[in-house]
């Protein structure tokens, strides 16, 4: 499953500069709004679902080399956060639904936690 399929199926809004999403294949999914948990538990190349839009999400995504971050419930990162994500090559996605819905959809598509 590639990131462009996920973006299309879930109708996610791409907040950062588009790249070749068809070349990115998330390996797992992870949900948490506690960044300390994400840092210790999310797997490399996973897709992270959160409603935290704080600037620190970019550093965490970068540290773990995550495939993308889906920010739920229309939580809006500020311009500096989006710029930083662009600089670091991190993909930030956004949606109006909550984290439960997005997790369920990704599970249906075949993504697992491990």
């Amino acid at each position: 499953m590639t990131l462009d399929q996920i973006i299309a199926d879930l109708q996610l809004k791409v907040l950062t500069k588009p790249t070749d999403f068809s070349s990115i294949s998330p390996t797992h999914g992870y949900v948490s709004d506690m960044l300390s948990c994400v840092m210790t538990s999310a797997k490399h190349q996973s897709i992270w679902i959160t409603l935290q839009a704080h600037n620190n999400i970019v550093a965490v995504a970068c540290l773990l080399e995550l495939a993308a971050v889906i920010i739920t419930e229309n939580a809006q990162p500020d311009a500096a956060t989006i710029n930083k994500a662009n600089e670091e090559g991190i993909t930030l996605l956004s949606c109006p639904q909550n984290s439960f819905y997005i997790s369920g959809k990704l599970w249906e598509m075949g993504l697992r936690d491990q």
Partner: protein
Amino acid sequence: MIPPLIIQTAESRDINLIAISDHNAIANIAAVMQAARGSSVTVLPAIELQTREEIHSLCIFDTLDQIEVFFNQILPFMPAIQNNVDFFGEQFVVDQTGDFVRREERLLISSCALSLKEAWQLVEENQGLLIPAHVNRSAFGLFPILGFIPQDIELEILEISRHITPAQALLDYPQLADYGLIQSGDAHFLDDILGWNEFLIEQPTVNEIRKALLGKSGRKYRNLSVNS
């Protein structure tokens, strides 16, 4: 905790500087300031603001006017949820004698819609000091929630909870070494009023406290915590 008992308790423990910092509310500050008149206790107005990220931040000011201006700016970002007394308990506003004035109908425990950065900017604009509170605590603490201290704002001082030693906090979170540290009672009951912070300052103002915590201009700070 009613205003005259707060002042009496502080005086009996030789504490002459306190801050009243209710959660997302300022309605009881004036009463405590009035109760302190004629006593040896100075009361600074403060608020424990819960930001969008669910981080508790102590926002402390010099005057009631300043915090009222600040509060009116943040009020539109507070959620319009009614308190349910059965679940969350009473939220009383009292006068300087502790007598009932009114019930706060707005539920105070939830988060405001401002980010930590937005809150910090507003506090700075109003000449206050924002100190992320109990940063080591898994509930509402900056480190568990944000993973590390954000670098997009110029935080200067952080507060660690009363249940950890400063040395242990530094071991757990080495990033703390770059900041001024304070350890407060976070008193919710009279018995929690500890008097752990000793400042050598010219006057009891936010800027003097800031200088003392950062060890600047000859001002000094000593943590009298039983843990330190």
